[in-house]
């Protein structure tokens, strides 16, 4: 029974990782194609559907962590997925004026390269039991460039969206109401921006530590 469950887990995770891998591969493919054919302003429309699907599917990863299917700590995945979903749905989908900005191109390219490497890495480990050392190296090295480019794109797009958020009054709850509650999407977005200030060095430092551990382990192995 235990062997059957463990095999089921492996099949499920292999399917999950490779499916999402294909999603992100599409994002990169359509992004590069649109860049070459129409230029940066056409990138969003070309990648919208696979981007939304692939990124939203990542919510399952939080479930995987809670249920114990994977070992990753929920505390590390939650802020990462939170910021991604905020950008995909809260900024790009909600505030259409941001879609033609050049930072959209750097955003989806940074994200898709990172995720293609990451999902193929996990996909191989689950399906084949190992991942080649060059893929391990890629996984723990490309972030050195892609984190700064991705984070800059995220922060830049939120900043670009701010005046449109303020003007549209979207997602705002005003008083008076029975529960004396207010929500101002403009100020919430500013708080989100502020979180990037301590959050980015923290995440980068965490990945640097992970890199040291992962690459030294493979040397001695």
């Amino acid at each position, binding site marked *: 029974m235990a062997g059957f469950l463990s095999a089921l887990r492996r099949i499920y995770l292999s399917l999950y990782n490779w499916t999402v891998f294909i999603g992100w591969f599409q994002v990169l493919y359509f992004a590069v194609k649109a860049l070459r054919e129409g230029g940066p302003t056409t990138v969003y429309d070309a990648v919208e559907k696979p981007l939304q699907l692939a990124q939203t599917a990542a919510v399952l990863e939080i479930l995987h962590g809670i249920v114990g299917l994977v070992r990753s700590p929920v505390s590390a995945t939650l802020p990462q997925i939170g910021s991604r979903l905020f950008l995909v749905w809260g900024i790009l989908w909600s505030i259409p004026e941001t879609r033609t900005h050049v930072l959209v191109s750097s955003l989806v390219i940074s994200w898709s390269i990172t995720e293609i490497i990451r999902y193929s890495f996990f996909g191989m480990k689950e399906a084949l039991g190992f991942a080649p050392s060059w893929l391990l190296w890629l996984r723990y090295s490309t972030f050195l460039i892609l984190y700064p480019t991705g984070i800059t794109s995220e922060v830049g797009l939120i900043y670009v969206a701010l005046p449109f958020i303020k003007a549209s009054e979207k997602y705002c709850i005003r008083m*008076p109401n029975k529960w*004396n509650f*207010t929500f101002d999407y403009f100020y919430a977005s500013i708080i989100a921006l502020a979180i990037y200030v301590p959050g980015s060095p923290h995440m980068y430092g965490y990945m640097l530590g992970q890199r040291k551990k992962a690459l030294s382990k493979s040397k001695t192995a």
Partner: protein
Amino acid sequence: MKVNLVSRNGREVVKGGIELTDEATVSDLQEAIHARIKKYYPSRQRLTLPLQAGSKGKPVVLIPKKKLADYCDGNANNLTVVFKDLGVQVSYSTLFFWEYLGPLVIYPVFYYFPVYKYFGYEGERTIYPVQTYALYYWCFHYFKRILETFFVHRFSHATSPLSNVFRNCAYYWTFGAYIAYHVNHPLYTPVGDFQIKIGFTFGLICQLANFYCHLILRNLRSPDGNGGYQIPRGFLFNIVTCANYTTEIYQWLGFNMATQTIPGCVFLVVATLIMTNWALTKHRRLKKLFDGKEGRPRYPRRWVILPPFM
């Protein structure tokens, strides 16, 4: 006897070790370390016995009043002690004072000063009676907390790391402003009179009960600051281990019944989660300490913090 003081990665903290008499206590060792390295005052020192290689248990912490000789198992003239710097420390009184002062000062600012015009709400605002009572209730609560800090509580540890001042003040001051903004808002909607009266009355009774719980807890400890743990008895402690947290949670419930704001409810939920975490730790510690063996009493069956859930 000679004490070798090492850091957790094996480096000598005090070159050549520290010479003390055979009758010396841990406290004497702490004073000697402080004399050799000025910045390491005793409350900053964490002294433990070295963990045996491969053992997984927690290290034995040296207790100030005990004699060093009690920790030497074989060699009575030589003891190795592991040192950890806990960082800059502040007394608990200092920590509590600053975290409670924020809400006490910030809340009335939203009530008395024309703050809302900076948020775009011009003109006069009508103040409902419930908003005035909420102000008195809130300020009484934090004033009570400050008085208890200086006159009632006896702390198990004298100090807390300085970083906790910033973290705790951020928590209390931010939530204080968040709640004060909403309760004193020009467009605030009060609930019915009956709900307001029940809320504040219930809350006040719970605050008084909470004060009595603090008195009981105080009398469990001796005034010479020994810390230590006893089985709490009497009043609500006969039914629930952390009756002080229980009454605190219910008094916030009373405040929220009377004021009905989402921010107030969010604060209640977060505070409940934090206190439940503390209560579980305390309950487990008491059960472990009072296991009924070797003449120790056995910890009675009790709710942890919130009957009938936990």
